[in-house]
C-alpha cells in the first residue's frame, strides 16, 4: 500500500524516535514521582526532535528542544521543587470509581479510528511523508526562511492571535495569583 521504500538507516532512526516518544509518554503516566515524570516528558520531546530531524525539519527540531525541553519543562521542575510536591505519597484512595474501563474503551476507539483513517485514506495532505521520497520540502537554512514566510504572511492572524492569547493568559495568571497583602497584614 505504501509506495515508498525506506532505507535501513531511515527505519532505524524512526524506530529509535518512536521508542523514545512512546516510552517517555508511558513514563509520564506510569511514574509516581513528579520529577521522574518530568524527565520522561523530556525524553518524549527529544524523540519528537529526532523525528523532526529525520524529516529534515532541523529548525523545528532545534526549537522543540530550546522551547519545550529547555524552558517549559524546566518551569515544571521549578514549580515542583518550589512547592515541594515531590515525594509526597500519591492519593491512596481510588479517586475514579468506574471511569477507568470507559476511559480505556475511549482510548482504544480513538487509536483504532486514527489507524484506520491513516491507513485507508491519504488523510490531511495526501502525502505519506513530509520528505517525499527522501527529498525534503526545503533544505538547510531554507526551512527557516520558508517557515518565517509562512508564519508572517499566510498565518499572520493566527500567529498574532496566539501571541495575544499568551499575553492574556499571563495577565490572568497574575491577577488570579496576586494575594491581597492588606488583608494578610490585618490578620496578622
Amino acid at each position: 500500500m505504501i509506495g515508498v521504500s525506506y532505507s535501513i538507516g531511515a527505519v532505524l532512526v524512526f524506530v529509535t524516535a518512536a521508542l523514545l516518544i512512546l516510552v517517555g509518554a508511558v513514563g509520564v503516566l506510569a511514574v509516581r514521582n513528579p520529577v521522574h515524570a518530568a524527565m520522561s516528558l523530556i525524553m518524549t520531546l527529544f524523540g519528537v526532535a529526532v523525528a523532526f530531524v529525520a524529516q529534515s525539519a532541523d529548525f523545528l527540531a532545534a526549537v522543540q528542544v530550546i522551547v519545550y525541553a529547555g524552558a517549559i519543562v524546566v518551569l515544571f521542575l521549578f514549580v515542583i521543587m518550589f512547592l515541594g510536591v515531590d515525594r509526597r505519597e500519591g492519593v491512596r484512595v481510588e479517586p475514579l470509581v468506574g471511569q477507568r474501563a470507559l476511559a480505556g474503551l475511549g482510548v482504544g476507539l480513538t487509536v483504532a479510528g486514527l489507524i484506520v483513517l491513516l491507513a485507508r485514506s491519504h488523510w490531511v495532505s495526501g502525502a505519506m511523508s513530509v520528505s517525499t521520497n527522501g527529498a525534503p520540502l526545503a533544505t538547510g537554512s531554507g526551512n527557516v526562511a520558508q517557515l518565517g514566510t509562512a508564519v508572517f504572511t499566510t498565518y499572520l492572524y493566527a500567529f498574532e492571535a496566539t501571541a495575544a492569547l499568551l499575553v492574556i493568559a499571563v495577565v490572568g495568571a497574575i491577577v488570579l495569583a496576586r494575594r491581597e497583602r492588606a488583608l494578610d497584614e490585618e490578620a496578622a
Partner: protein
Amino acid sequence: MIGVDPVYSHGLGLAVWLIILIRLVVAFAVLLNAVILMIWFERKAISDMQSRIGPQRWGPFGLLQTIADGIKLIFKEDLMPAEADRLVFRLAPFLALIPGFITFAIVPVGGTLTIAGHPVRLQVADPPMGILLMLAMSGISVYGVMLAGWASGSKYPLISSVRASAQMISYEAALGLSIVMIVLVTGSLSTHDIVASQAHGIWNWNVIRLGVVPFVIFLIAITAELNRPPFDVVEAESELVGGFHTEYSSFRFAIFYLAEFMNTITMSAIIVTLFFGGPAGWVPNVAHLRWVFPILWFLAKTTAFAFAYIWFRAALPRFRYDQVMDLGWKRLIPLSLGWLLVVAGFLISVSWGFGMAALALFAWTLLTRAFELGSGRERGAEAVLPVIGPRPLAPEALRELTDEDEEA
C-alpha cells in the same frame, strides 16, 4: 543534513569515514586537554592576582597538578546521601558534561584543508540548525545543575538548583535575542557561514558591525548561563556550602568540575566564533603553513576570553540574587529587544534604522519612567492595588485555610 559539509562531496568512502573519525577524536582530545590546562591556568592566574604562588609541586610550573587532583578524586570514596534519588543522582553529572562537548562540535577551529583530495573543514559538524544547537544545549545543561541539586535530597543543594533554574531561564532570553541579531546580519544559522561572513577585515567582525552592545549582552548572559562569577549565586560558598554539588564526591564531583571548565572553554570559543570572526586574522605568506595561522588566531582569541573569565572571578564581587534577576529581566531583555529593532531597521534601509532607533529610544524613556514609578511606590498595606473583582476564594475562607496550616 549531510550535503552541507564538503567532505561528503565525493560520497562516503573509507577515507571520508576515517577523516570524520579522526576529526572527532582530535576535537575530543584537544578539548579534554584544554580543560586540564584551563584548570591550571585559572589557578595560576588567580593566585597571581591574589599574590599567592598557586600550584607548583607537580611538573614544571605545577602543570600536572590537575592530573594529580583527578587521580585523587577518582580514588576517593563515592558517597551517596541516604535521601538521594539514586537514578537522578547518577544521571545529573553527565547531563552537565555532555552539552559542553556537543556545543564545541559546531565551533569552526580553522579554515578548510585538503586531505587526500577531500576538502575538510576544521569543524566537527556543521548542522543546518547551526548556532541553535548551542542554545538547545545550554537549555539542556540547566538540567544537570537542577537535577543534581534536587536529587541530593538536601536543603542547600535544593535552594541552589532552584536559583540555577531561575537564573538560566532568565538569561536565555537575552542570549537568544543577541544571537538573533547575528543571524539577521549573516542570513544563515550555520556557524561556518557566520565565520565566513566575518572573514574580510576587522570591520566585518560582528562585534563592530552590530555595535558593541550585542556583544556586551551576550557576554553577560553567557557568564550567567555558565554560573561563573560574578553570577555564581548558584554555588555561593558563603551561603550554600558548595551549591548543587555539595553532596557529590569522588568521580561524580570530578565530572561536575570538568563540565564547568569545559563549558567555560566552549563558551569562550562560541564568543570568538560569533563576534570576533573565529579563525579570521592576518595570515603571512608562508608556503605549506598557511593553514596553521587561522588555528593560532582562534586559539589566541579563545585564550583571551578564557583569561577574561578568570579576571572577572578575581575582580568582581558576587551579585545578590535579586540583582541578578533585575539585571536579566529589567535591563538586558529590554535592551536587546530595542537593539534588535534598530539592527533590523538598518538592514532594510538607513531611514528605517533611524526610525527604529527613535522608537527604541521612546520605549526606553517609557520603561525608565515605569521603573521610576515602580520603585518610588509606597510599600506596605497602602501600596496594594485596589481589588478588581471577586477572588476565586473569599478572603475569610482563604484566611481560615492558611490559619489551619499554621496550627498544623
